[in-house]
């Protein structure tokens, strides 16, 4: 169907370690968006990927869109306590459908 699957569901890391979350679809995606939701907050847009094989960076965050446009990943280098939250991917094109999210917690 139109769902996007995210793994892992939870990730607990030591501060300074890297973190990666994956988003997979059974169908080709027109685009993929990534959002971050802090505990008790609302989702905040991070980035949108449109092109096959696209890679975008925002400081310590690296976003990739697969060559087949069926998967995407978000990688955080050297996590900090400010990175705590749930990261969602969302498929776009006329309506925005969210994945189940990956909750990141960090040990100081």
């Amino acid at each position: 169907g139109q769902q996007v699957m995210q793994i892992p569901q939870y990730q607990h890391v030591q501060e300074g370690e890297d973190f990666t979350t994956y988003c997979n679809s059974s169908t080709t995606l027109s685009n993929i968006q990534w959002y971050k939701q802090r505990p008790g907050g609302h989702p905040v847009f991070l980035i949108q990927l449109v092109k096959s094989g696209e890679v975008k960076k925002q400081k310590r965050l690296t976003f990739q869109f697969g060559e087949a446009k069926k998967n995407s990943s978000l990688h955080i280098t050297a996590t900090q306590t400010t990175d705590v939250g749930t990261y969602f991917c969302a498929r776009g094109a006329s309506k925005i459908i969210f994945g189940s999210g990956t909750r990141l917690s960090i040990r100081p």
Partner: protein
Amino acid sequence: EAGVAQSPRYKIIEKRQSVAFWCNPISGHATLYWYQQILGQGPKLLIQFQNNGVVDDSQLPKDRFSAERLKGVDSTLKIQPAKLEDSAVYLCASSLGFEVDEKLFFGSGTQLSVL
């Protein structure tokens, strides 16, 4: 720039009662969305408006949920009668629209508890 405004912030009702949520999107945003987010899950799209027309309401439980966007600006989401499983955060989001910019801006949400 003002963000997406939602009210109330919290609401506690008993099952079978009715409740309404209000949303004022960012000025100029043509597309408005209502999402339901159950604790620990991703936001689930309930209904999407383009200006004052419904684009998608396939996941809206129409026997109890209704929504409108009069004049293509503000929107209200109503639940009548509420069930225990309706306990969730109801998020409103807006965007410039498909083919323009699909980036969603969310309001702070309304946390609904049905007892």
